[in-house]
């Protein structure tokens, strides 16, 4: 495996880590918009409050790693997605401050405002990340020399919006399954029902999106019949089927695990089939950004690999430690004095 491929995998790991971890934060945040009582909303917040910030770092590190390993992708896509990305950033800002601000003043209007900011700030990225993925897979107008020829409205094409709704439904389901683990009694039951409903919506959208991909980007099915493609597809199918089975059977942790496996497997299926392309050009596959024409020098990729190999195991150790400290059910007053 060459260094470029290693970094293709590592960027994939960062994206998958972000989707699994911040994915449930975003879903739980979006679901807090539907909470039926202030006490229930407190539980949504309490379940994510101690860990969301660490989870979001997967995104920041992913951005930094993309800049370091594939600067042409970082430069071309982020400038091309300018307005869309600004919208995501605004939403993430709203989410970050609302969690800290909402409890600071004991006024219903104050709290309602920040709760709305928390919910919308969570829901919007859950959909917009999917729209971005849709565009990257469907193809964006990149001419020779990585010259961007797209527009903001061009990003809102039907295929990408469909992928956006699919990820939105997935993250809502993922968040509900997480809350199912962190809640008790009737609320936990309700989260199970929400997750099953979201599962149906997700399944329909995912099927539609897969079907559309056959027309939009047929090359993304190129490796489906190879052993790795078959194995990953099987993993997707198994975890999709597993979610409702585990949820019905009251195995909340297993259901959440299945959902985590599902998102990782979906990302892998797309990655394996797209390899070595990072961003598809709609002006011709040969103009696409690949792990070779968009990459940094071998020396930088090697240096970065050392940084990742030294740093990430330590990160994983204290991330696990943090989740162990906050294991168990969420309580209304955060995790204080449990």
């Amino acid at each position, binding site marked *: 495996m060459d260094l470029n491929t290693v970094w293709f995998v590592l960027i994939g790991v960062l994206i998958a880590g972000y989707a699994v971890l911040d994915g449930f934060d975003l879903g739980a945040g979006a679901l807090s918009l539907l909470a039926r009582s202030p006490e229930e909303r407190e539980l949504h917040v309490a379940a994510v409050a101690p860990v969301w910030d660490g989870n979001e770092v997967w995104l*920041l590190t992913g951005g930094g*790693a993309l800049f370091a390993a594939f600067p042409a992708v970082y*430069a071309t896509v982020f*400038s091309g997605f300018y307005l869309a990305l600004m919208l995501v950033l605004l939403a993430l800002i709203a989410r*970050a401050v609302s969690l*800290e601000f909402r409890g600071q003043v004991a006024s219903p209007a104050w709290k309602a405002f920040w709760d709305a900011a928390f919910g919308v700030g969570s829901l919007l990225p859950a959909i917009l990340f999917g729209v971005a993925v849709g565009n990257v897979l469907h193809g964006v107008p990149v001419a020779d020399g990585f010259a961007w020829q797209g527009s903001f409205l061009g990003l809102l094409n039907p295929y990408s919006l469909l992928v956006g709704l699919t990820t939105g439904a997935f993250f809502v389901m993922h968040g509900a399954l997480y809350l199912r683990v962190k809640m008790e009694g009737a609320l936990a039951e309700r989260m199970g029902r929400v997750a099953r409903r979201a599962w149906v919506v997700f399944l329909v959208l995912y099927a539609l999106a897969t079907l559309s991909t056959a027309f939009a980007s047929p090359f993304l099915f190129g490796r489906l019949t190879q052993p790795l493609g078959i194995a990953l597809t099987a993993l997707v199918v198994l975890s999709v089927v597993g979610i409702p089975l585990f949820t019905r059977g009251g195995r909340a942790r297993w259901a959440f695990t299945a959902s985590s496996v599902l998102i990782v497997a979906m990302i892998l299926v797309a990655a394996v089939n797209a390899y070595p392309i990072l961003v598809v050009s709609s002006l011709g596959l040969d103009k696409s950004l690949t792990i070779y024409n968009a990459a940094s020098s071998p020396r930088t990729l090697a240096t970065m690999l050392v940084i990742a190999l030294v740093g990430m195991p330590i990160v994983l150790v204290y991330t696990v430690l943090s989740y162990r400290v906050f294991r168990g059910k969420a309580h209304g007053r955060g*995790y204080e004095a449990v």
Partner: protein
Amino acid sequence: MDALALARLQFAVTIGFHFIFPPVSIGLAWMVVVAEYLGWRKADEEYVKVGGLLGKLLAITFAVGVATGIVMEFQFGTNWSRYSMFVGDIFGAPLAAEGVFAFFLESTFMGLYLFGRGRLSKGMHWFSALMVAVGSTLSAFWIIVANSWQQTPAGFHLVDLPGGGQRAELTSFFDAVFNPSTLPRYFHVVTAALVTGAFVAAGVFAWHVRRDTGSAFARKGLKLGVAWGLVFAVLEVMPFGHLHAQQVARTQPAKFAAIEGLYRHAPGNAPMLVFGVPFMKGPPPTPGMAAPIEIPGLLSWMAFGDFNAPVKGLQDFPEDERPPLWLTFVSFHNMVILGVWFIFIMALAAWRLYAGKLYDSPGVLKALVISIPLPVLACQLGWVAAEVGRQPFIVYPGQQANGEPFAGLRTAMAHSPTVGAGEIAFSLVLFTAIYLSLFVLWLFLMIRKTRLAANDLAATGAAGCGADAA
């Protein structure tokens, strides 16, 4: 305004606004570490209260810092795509390293610090605060590495790209990380953050002492803030400010000429300009200084340790390679004035403290309260001097690893060609409005927390921060 001017304005707004918070967070995090350590090891309830209040202020500041920092990670790509293409091979690595070595650490342990009370042992809880402080200080290191490489690039060479154009490629990671300005700037910036934290603490507890002279926790917090503040206010200027200025004189002579207001070439005995009003128009020599107060020879000596050392003036550089004089000079000098004030007020407070009279010195206490925002202002001014003084280059000229000269990358050649003025203007207005609201909210909550603390702490003892954040 055209897209370039708007992109520059947007960068100035997003980074300037973000940079209000990290110095406060870093400084407060270390104050919390010290206060909670004293509270824990000495079993001193008053220090626990000091740590509790500072921890609450830290939590609010940290949240706004995180929120505004997200933008920083992406805006090189959104607004400066040609820059990103040119420097990605070098500049991306410190940003990624910041994520791996710093952001994960501070964010994860911030969660443990804020919500772990009752779930963690006292020792582990203190350790969490320590890791927040270490993480945020490491974060400053990597971001200073990235910015210092723009100031004094090293460990790279230029490579022609197959599709035309050039980019800088890494030849030595070590040389790029420890480029000539990294360490002088890092120590200068980190001590500035420690001064900022000390002034917040000293000011907050001075306010409480003014309100209730007998308050034991406020007295201890004040003592801590003043001691800490005096030490770092001195270190900030001497040696770290001085060493940084010497490094600028060696490695960025045009910037040095601008911050010192030296227009004409000085073959030796260069004067130190203590005061002056730069003017840009009028009869030659323009630009120049009105009403200058100069100390002959001092600048040569300060910069190079030799009264006879020549110092380059702005005149020595072609007109299109000179940084803007006015903004660079004025921000630098006001920063220096503030630095002197920090030493003065902290020394005065320390002397009154030593004499046992600080708690009965309303004037000094009031001055400490009023001084709370000044280190943040000094940080901003220093940052403006550093970044405007680098202009008109986004990557300062220097030398490649193979000894070939590097002509620098001009800011005007670095922005995203595909992002239009309208798009930037739209998002700039939106972000500015949101940032202004966030700033007002942050101030409101910081002041409110400080005011309420007296009653809270009296009523509930050392309450954890979890209740606030939940």
